[in-house]
C-alpha cells in the first residue's frame, strides 16, 4: 500500500514575525497623509481628488508592470508605491495635465526605483527625483497655481487666474504675506497637498510618535531653514513664511525621513537634515527656483553614502536600565511581623 506522506515546512528561526511589516509602516504613512489629503480636496475641489487617485493608480500600475516585465515577485502589496504616488500628487499644482502625472510616476517607479532593484535599493527618493525632473523640464506647468476653491465639490472655473505663491511673492518683491495663519492652515495658493503645513505637521508628529520615522531629520531640516532664514532677515514673519509656505514640511516629514535613502546613524541623520536645510535655503535665496526643498532632499540623498562612511553606526554595547548590587539582597528585617 502506498502511504501518502505529508511534508512539513522547514525554515530558519524565528518562527513568528511581527505583524508590523513594510506594508504596516507604509499604511501608517498613508494614515499620516490622510488629513492633508482631505484638506487638499477641500482647498482645490474635485480635481485634487482626481489627480491624487490617478497618480496612485499610475504608480500601482507601473510598479506591477515593471516587476512583471523583470520577472520578479510582485511588491505592490507593500504599499510603498502608493506612498510615492500620493507624495507625487501632493507636490503637483491642481492644474497639472494628466500626462505629466504619468511621466512623474513612470520616472519615480520604473527608472528611480525598479531599475535599481526595487524597495530598499533605490539611491534617491523616487518622489523627490520625479518631482525634480518635472520642475526642471516642465517649469511652466509646474508653477501654474490657482487660488484655493474652498469646497469639496468645486471644479476649476474656466477663467481661473494664475496666482503666485507666498514664497514667490516673497522672493520677487520681498513682501511678506498679510495673513500668516491662512498660510499655516493651508488656505493659500500652492501644490495640492503641501499648502497645509499644520496638517502635515500633525501627520509627521503621528509618525514620530508611532516610532515609524525618526525625529532627528525633520527637526534638523526645518530647524536649519528657520535659523538661516532668521539670520538672513532678522524678521520672524519672513522666517515663518519660509517655513509654512512651499514644500518644506512635506519634504521634511515624508521625503527626507525615507529610511532607505537617509543615513543609518543618529548623528548622520542630524547632518543629513542640516544638509537638506542648507540646500533648501541656498536654492530659495540664491537660485532661480522659488522652492528648493525637493531638490535639497535629492542632493542630500546623494550625499548619504558619504555621511554613512564618515559617521557609521557604532557598536552600542550593553546597558541595562537598572541593576542591583549584592548588598541589596542582604537580609533585611521584614516589616510584617
Amino acid at each position, binding site marked *: 500500500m502506498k502511504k501518502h506522506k*505529508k*511534508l*512539513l*515546512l*522547514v*525554515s*530558519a*528561526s*524565528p*518562527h*513568528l*514575525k*511581527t*505583524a*508590523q*511589516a*513594510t506594508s*504596516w*509602516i507604509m499604511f501608517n504613512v498613508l494614515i499620516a497623509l490622510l488629513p492633508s489629503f482631505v484638506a487638499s480636496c477641500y482647498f482645490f475641489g474635485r480635481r485634487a481628488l482626481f489627480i491624487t487617485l490617478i497618480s496612485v493608480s499610475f504608480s500601482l500600475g507601473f510598479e506591477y508592470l515593471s516587476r512583471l516585465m523583470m520577472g520578479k515577485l510582485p*511588491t505592490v502589496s*507593500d504599499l510603498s508605491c502608493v506612498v510615492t504616488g500620493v507624495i507625487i500628487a501632493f507636490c503637483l499644482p491642481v492644474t497639472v495635465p494628466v500626462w505629466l502625472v504619468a511621466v512623474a510616476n513612470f520616472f519615480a517607479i520604473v527608472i528611480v526605483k525598479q531599475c535599481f*532593484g*526595487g*524597495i*530598499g*535599493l533605490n539611491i534617491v527618493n523616487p518622489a523627490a527625483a520625479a518631482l525634480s525632473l518635472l520642475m526642471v523640464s516642465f517649469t511652466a506647468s509646474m508653477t501654474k497655481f490657482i487660488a484655493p476653491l474652498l469646497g469639496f465639490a468645486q471644479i476649476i472655473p474656466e477663467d481661473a487666474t494664475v496666482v503666485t505663491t507666498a514664497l514667490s511673492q516673497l522672493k520677487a518683491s520681498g513682501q511678506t504675506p498679510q495673513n500668516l495663519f491662512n498660510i499655516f492652515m493651508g488656505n493659500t495658493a500652492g501644490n495640492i497637498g503641501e499648502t497645509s503645513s499644520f496638517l502635515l505637521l500633525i501627520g509627521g508628529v503621528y509618525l514620530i510618535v508611532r516610532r515609524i520615522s*525618526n525625529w532627528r531629520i525633520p527637526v534638523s531640516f526645518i530647524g536649519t531653514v528657520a535659523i538661516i532664514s532668521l539670520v538672513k532677515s532678522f524678521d520672524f514673519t519672513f522666517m515663518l513664511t519660509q517655513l509654512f509656505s512651499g514644500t518644506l514640511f512635506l519634504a521634511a516629514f515624508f521625503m527626507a525621513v525615507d*529610511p*532607505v535613502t*537617509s543615513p*543609518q546613524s543618529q548623528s548622520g541623520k542630524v547632518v543629513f537634515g542640516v544638509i537638506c536645510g542648507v540646500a533648501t535655503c541656498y536654492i530659495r535665496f540664491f537660485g532661480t527656483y522659488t522652492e528648493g526643498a525637493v531638490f535639497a532632499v535629492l542632493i542630500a540623498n546623494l550625499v548619504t553614502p558619504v555621511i554613512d562612511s564618515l559617521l*557609521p*553606526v*557604532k*557598536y*552600542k*554595547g*550593553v*546597558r*541595562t*536600565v*537598572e*541593576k*542591583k*548590587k*549584592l548588598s541589596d*539582597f*542582604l*537580609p*533585611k528585617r*521584614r516589616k*510584617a511581623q
Partner: protein
Amino acid sequence: MLLTFRGGVDAGNKSEFLSGSVINTIGAGETLVLPVPFGCTPVVEAGERVLAGQVVAVSDNEYGASLSSAVSGTVVKATASRITIENDGENTLCDRLEADDPITLLRDAGVTDRFGFSAAQKVANAPALYIISCVEDQPYMVNVQALLSCRADEFIGGIKLLEKISENAHIVICTTPDLSEYASKISEALMEDERVQFLTVSGKYPQSWPHILKRTVTTEESCEVIGTEELCNIYRVFKTRMPVTEKIVTLSGDCMRRAEVFSVPYGTCVSTLIKAGTSFKREPLKVVKGSVMNGDAIYNMRSPIDRTVSSVLTLFDHQHRYAGESHCISCGRCDNVCPEGLSPGSIIKAYKLNDTATLSRLSVSSCTLCGCCSFICPARVNLPLILRSAQLMGE
C-alpha cells in the same frame, strides 16, 4: 518595580496554562533515541543491557552533565552522536545514587538547565547569589506556569535545599508580571525566609536567557541562574536519589486549542508526543522543536526530544511561513531591539561587502543569535542566518 534590559521584543501571543490542568506523563515508547549531548561520550556499547536510570554517556568537562537511560532494555546502536535503546518494558531500576556530597550527587544525576549546563557546576562555583528564573518570555510556552502550579511544593523544597547546600548564598526569585498569581503563592510559603527575595522582571524576549537575566538583575559577578525545572529536578534527585530522565515539554502552537504540558522521557520522538496531544484543531504545516524564537523546524517527526527541548510547537498560521522577504529598507528597528547593542543592519551590509574590519568593529562576535532582529524586521529579512555567516567570516 519592573526590572528590564535594553532591547528585546515583546512577542506577545502568550498561551495560558489553564487552572486545573495537570502535567501529563507519557510512557516511554518501544525505542528511545538519545542524542549524545555536546561534549559527552557514550559509555555503553551495542548489545549491552542497560537499566532504567543507568548512565549511558558521561561529560568530558565539568560544564556538561551525564545522560541516563529512561528505560531498561538493550542498546541497539551506540555512536558518538546518538544511542538507540530498545525498551524491554520491564522498567528495571538501577541502584539508587549513593553519593553524599551534593555536588557529586547532582553530577551523577545529570541535572541540567534547558541549555544543557550542569547544575552541579553551578553549585560547585559557590556563588554569592542564586537567581531562580521563573520567567516566561516566549509565545506558547507554559512550562514555568505548569511547574509553579503543579509542582510548587517541589519548587519550595528546592529553594530550601539550595539554602542548605550553599550556606552563605542569597536567593532571588525572578518572576514576570503575568506569573504574579503563582509567585504570590510561593512567596507566602517562603515568607519567613530572610535569604529569599522576590523580584519582578519584564516578560520581554529574551529575558529568560541566563546572561540577560544576570545583566538585568545584578551587578554581582558571582551569581548563577537556575531554571524552574532545574530547581524542581534538584529537589527530586535529593528526594528519590534517582537520575533525571524526564523533561517537561509544552505541546502548543496555533494548531491547538490550548497548551498541554507533558513529562516526557528523554529520547521519545516528537510524533509520540504529538499523538498524546488532545486538543488539536487542524493539521500543522510546520512542527518546531524548541521555542518559537529559536527552535528548529523539523522535517522528520521521529526527531527525539532531549533535555534542551522545552516545547514542541505545531504551527499553521501564514505568519510563520518564510515568505515576503524584501531587501533591507534600513529602518533601524533591528538596532533598537538588539539586546547586545549590535547593529544587525550595518553588519549585514558589511558582510555583503566582505568587509571583515567593519565586522569586527561592529563586534559581530557578540551576537547571541536570539532572533529579536529577525522578529521585528518589517522587510522579513532572515537576519540570524546572515549574522551567523558574518560571525564565521569574522573568525
